[in-house]
């Protein structure tokens, strides 16, 4: 069953068509890769799904509900979490504070219980601290919980973003270049994390330029070029698709 479905999604910035008439579906419990050359409109698609920017035309359905016009914070509470291409952690706050931000949308205590630390608020605090530590252990950063997020090495910051997104208890996780800037060893760890995320029955959609990572992790690929969806299918098929080779993989091979 399709968890997420994009229907004739179009986004224009002034005269520039960033995403043009993209329709596709993402089925539950799959890992979908969105690939394509730089400037193809991949991140724009992510921003449209998460509500960071507004659709020009078309509609996006998540679990049967339209996401059109919803605030990003509302979309998160429906179960879509994301990471950013350029890391957007709360740099000055602790690692634990960062993960707790993900728990925010699953908490209930309001202004007055926060002001007065009522018993229900305390129970909730304890529960989210546990949850945050579970997510930190999940990505292997629990021992650094007190450190300032900005002081972590780059690879760890990427992992922390994933932990923060997982703390929102998502059904659908959007990763924008999760392996970007990681060394080989860190990428291997990330693969393990991806496996573990799949075991938690979280559907994943990711943008990534590291092709061996994409081929290894994804079971379905969407290929974009110039704002259009030019191909989709299993990784092996995509690798052989002449259109894709011309647009993307071919160039990549030449570089190497």
């Amino acid at each position: 069953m399709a968890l997420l479905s994009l229907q004739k999604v179009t986004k224009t910035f002034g005269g520039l068509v960033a995403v043009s008439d993209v329709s596709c579906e993402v089925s539950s419990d799959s890992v979908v890769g969105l690939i394509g050359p730089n400037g193809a409109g991949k991140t724009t698609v992510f921003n449209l799904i998460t509500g960071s920017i507004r659709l020009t035309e078309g509609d996006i359905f998540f679990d049967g509900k339209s996401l059109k016009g919803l605030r990003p914070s509302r979309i998160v509470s429906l179960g879509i979490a994301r990471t950013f291409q350029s890391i957007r952690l709360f740099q000055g706050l602790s690692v634990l504070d960062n993960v707790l931000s993900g728990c925010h949308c699953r908490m209930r205590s309001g202004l007055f219980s926060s002001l007065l630390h009522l018993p229900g608020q305390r129970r909730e605090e304890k529960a989210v601290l546990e949850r945050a530590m579970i997510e930190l252990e999940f990505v292997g950063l629990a021992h650094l919980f007190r450190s300032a997020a900005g002081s972590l090495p780059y690879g760890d910051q990427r992992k922390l973003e994933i932990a923060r997104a997982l703390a929102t208890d998502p059904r659908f996780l959007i990763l924008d270049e999760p392996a970007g800037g990681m060394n080989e060893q860190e990428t291997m760890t990330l693969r393990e994390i991806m496996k573990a995320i799949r075991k938690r029955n979280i559907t994943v959609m990711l943008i990534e330029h590291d092709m061996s990572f994409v081929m290894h992790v994804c079971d379905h690929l969407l290929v974009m070029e110039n704002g259009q969806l030019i191909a989709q299918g299993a990784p092996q098929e995509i690798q052989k698709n002449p259109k894709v080779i011309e647009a993307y993989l071919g160039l990549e091979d030449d570089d190497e």
Partner: protein
Amino acid sequence: MSFASASRRKSFGSALTVAAVFVFACLPFLLGHLAGSSAPYWLDVLNTVGLYAILALSLNIILGHAGLFHMGHAAFFAVGAYVSAILNLTFDWPIMATIPAAALAAGLLAGLVAWPVVHLSGDYLLIVTIGIVEIVRIALTNDIFGLTGGPNGLVGISRPEIMGFRLTRPQHFFYLIWGLVAVSVLLFDWLERSRFGRALKYIREDVVAAESMGVNTNKYKILAFVIGAAWAGLAGTVYASRMRTISPESFNFTESVFLFIIVILGGRGNQKGVLLGSFLVMGLPEIFRGFENKRLLVFGAALVIMMIFRPGGLLPARSPGYKLPEPYRSRYKRLPDLSSGGVFNGAGSRANGPNASASEGFASGQAAAPSSGSGESSDSSKVISVDVGQDLVK
């Protein structure tokens, strides 16, 4: 530094805090002996400092925690004072009974004006808030609704009465005002250590990321304004009953600027810093009277120097320590803390923010003082942190 010595230091710190609060509470008596006939004057100075501390603590919610550049706090202070004065003079309400109305009116006004402008960032918001304080002042001067008495203001506001006891002398107000400072510190410390307080900090750090993590940023920005303004309204009531006379000139733009300076100079998001800032900005000029006329010059220079060497303020904000639930507490207790060395004894502020390394040379001298007895500053947040932690464990 072992964990055991850190916790001993912590309890030593809380003992120091209790001692400091006790000495401070005895000040009216001590001053009577030490300063003799000028004691009431010094108490009045302390009361002014306390009143500004309440205002600055409430501004700290907006400017410090949520990072919203707001330079119009005197507007909400004015609304609180005028609502109390009008209810007291025209409708004969006892002044203490007007507190909820004053807070509500100020909060409501804040909600109304914040609504259309919260999406503005930084300098744009600053300009709007400056506009608000001017509009309020001009409205009051022009005797809006025929209730505010125009440029002369309102005269003859009654003294507060608490359970039949009329507060008239400076020492009475000392306990009222500094009691309210203590309540503010306690409540806002709790607020900081909660879902609400964290949401504000996420907004300060990165609005886009905060929204993407599920924080309804507009809602929380407006709420920050409402809370801060309501508390300023409460301070307005106290001010009106202390002065017995209020006029528009008491709430002009300069007052807003002083409050802004207190928070920025002391340390945005750090209540100890804000208290320190209140003493420096409102107290010091009284001690050095010759320096009073030049205080804007001096604070201007101080701000420039601060922005270069210590952009976080004298006492920069730091993440509150969390008491982890088991089994995590014992699991990660003894691991070396790689980046923020001294979080245990409260000196972790040095790891906070990208500016930390730049200010290292200047900071180390200053930071040494708080770390030697982390809880000595005169608020009681340390005590609270221990309490809350123990409650969490139960």
